[in-house]
Structure formats: structure tokens, C-alpha cells
């Protein structure tokens, strides 16, 4: 009995190194978030925290969740999902940011 399956492998040669590197960057970014939170940056405090969180999420999505080696279909799916979330946020703030 033979097994037939489509594209079982994500990438041809799995390696440990890249993930450890991404993890190190994530640890450093966590340190940066905590350090920056101690400084009063006024209005851009939230923006800084969110920017770092977005960078961290991007790294997790791209490397840990393998979007880098998945087909374009996956990236389009994720992009559309995030776009709709972004639309909800944008529409919500048209109601609130002009109070």
C-alpha cells in the first residue's frame, strides 16, 4: 500500500538555526517594549508598543507559522482576514476619534 499525499513538506530542508535566531529577536523586542514603556513618550507611547507588537507578530506568522514557505494562497487568506480586521478598526475610530 502506498501513500499518496500532496505537498507534505513545507520546505525542502528543515533547519533549527533560523527559528532560534527568530526567537532571539523576539526576546530582544520584548526587552525593548518593556524598556520603552518606562520612558514617557507622550502620545506615541501606544503607537510604539503596537509597532513592536506588530513586528513580533509578523515574525511569528512568517517563520514560526511557516507563511514564508507556504503557497501564496495562505498569504492571501491571512492578508484578507487581517484587512477585514483593519477595516473594522478604521470604521470604529471614525466614530470615536473625533469626540
Amino acid at each position: 500500500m502506498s501513500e499518496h499525499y500532496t505537498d507534505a513538506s513545507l520546505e525542502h530542508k528543515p533547519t533549527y538555526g533560523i527559528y532560534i535566531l527568530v526567537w532571539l529577536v523576539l526576546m530582544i523586542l520584548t526587552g525593548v517594549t518593556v524598556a520603552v514603556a518606562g520612558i514617557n513618550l507622550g502620545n506615541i507611547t501606544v503607537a510604539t508598543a503596537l509597532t513592536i507588537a506588530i513586528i513580533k507578530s509578523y515574525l511569528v506568522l512568517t517563520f514560526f507559522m511557516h507563511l514564508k514557505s507556504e503557497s501564496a494562497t495562505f498569504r492571501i487568506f491571512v492578508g484578507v482576514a487581517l484587512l477585514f480586521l483593519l477595516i473594522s478598526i478604521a470604521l470604529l475610530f471614525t466614530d470615536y476619534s473625533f469626540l
Partner: protein
Amino acid sequence: MSTLAEHTVPHVHRDDVGSRLGMWLFLFTELILFGGMFLVYAVYRYTNQQEFHVAAKELNTSLGTLNTLVLLTSSLTIVLAIVAIRKGNKRLSVFLQIITLILALGFLINKYFEWNIKIHHGLFPGSEILLGKGSGEIIFFGLYYVMTGLHALHVMVGFVLIEIMTGYTIKGKINSTNYVRLEAAGLYWHLVDIIWIFLFPLFYLIT
């Protein structure tokens, strides 16, 4: 390329790409669930900025930071477990999955102590101390308990999922050619990690 000879052999059809895509679709529903809560948070934070800052001072930044590091590391160990099984290193994969489970447990124990301290300080939904505070602070703690609580629930679900996958790996059901289930559990675990990446600065670092 398939040949005529291959078609005469009965085969098991498996669609790993389809399985992964299915998992991603499920993760989008999680995105909507937590996304909605983040929207609620955004509105109340915008309308109660001062009170949110005061309330956030009650949270323990060190415990929050520790939990961030624990969760990020557990994300690394689960992704390395997938690499290990793909390389055919079953023992290392099982070891890394067990480390992930220990880290998940560590996160929950940490969360238990964190909530315990809050509750001892009388800061829980409906407590007299909390109800004596301003409406913004009541909302902050309401959101804190609901959002970190729902996240902790996801950590528990992830723990059970990974535990099942560890069992499969030991039994050989997950192996170097069939590891899509471990992949799916890993995707779920990373989503839990991403949610925490946003919860952490929004609750613990706004003082």
C-alpha cells in the same frame, strides 16, 4: 509524475495543504473573537485614558514580562519539535513537546499567582474595593479578567492539544512523513502566542 503502475496500487489520500488551510480558517475565527475584544478595549481606553493608566499600575509588570518570555520560548520549542520530527528525530521531538507543555504549565501557574494576588487585594469583578473605584477602572479590570482569562483558557486548550500530539508522536502516528497534526497544534499555539504579544503591552505596559 504518476504512472499507470501507481494507479493500480490502492492508496491512502491525504491532503496536508488542505488540512493546514483548514486550521488557518479556524484561526481566523479566533482572530474575530479576540479582535472584537480588542475593539472594545480600544474604545474604552480611548474614552477613559487616565483611569486606564491608574488601573494598570496595579498589574505586575515583572510577572507579565516573565510570562511573555515563557510563551515565546514555548513557541520556539513547538516549532523545533516539528523540525525534529521531520528530520526523523523522534526522541528530540517528544522532548521538545514536553518542554512546551512544561512552559505552558509554567505560564498558567504564573497566571494563577498573578490573579491570586489581585483577588487578595480585593480587585475582582464585583468586589467592594473595585466598585468603589471610578467606572474606567472597573472597565479596565473587567477587560483584564475577560481577555487574559479567555487567553488562559486558550493556553489550557493548547496544552491538551499538544499533550495529545505528544502521545501520537510516541506511538508513531506522527512521524517524519506524517506530521500535519503536530503542525496544526503548532499553528494554534503560535496564535495563542500572538494574542499574548498584544495583550501584554496593552494591559501591563500602559503606566
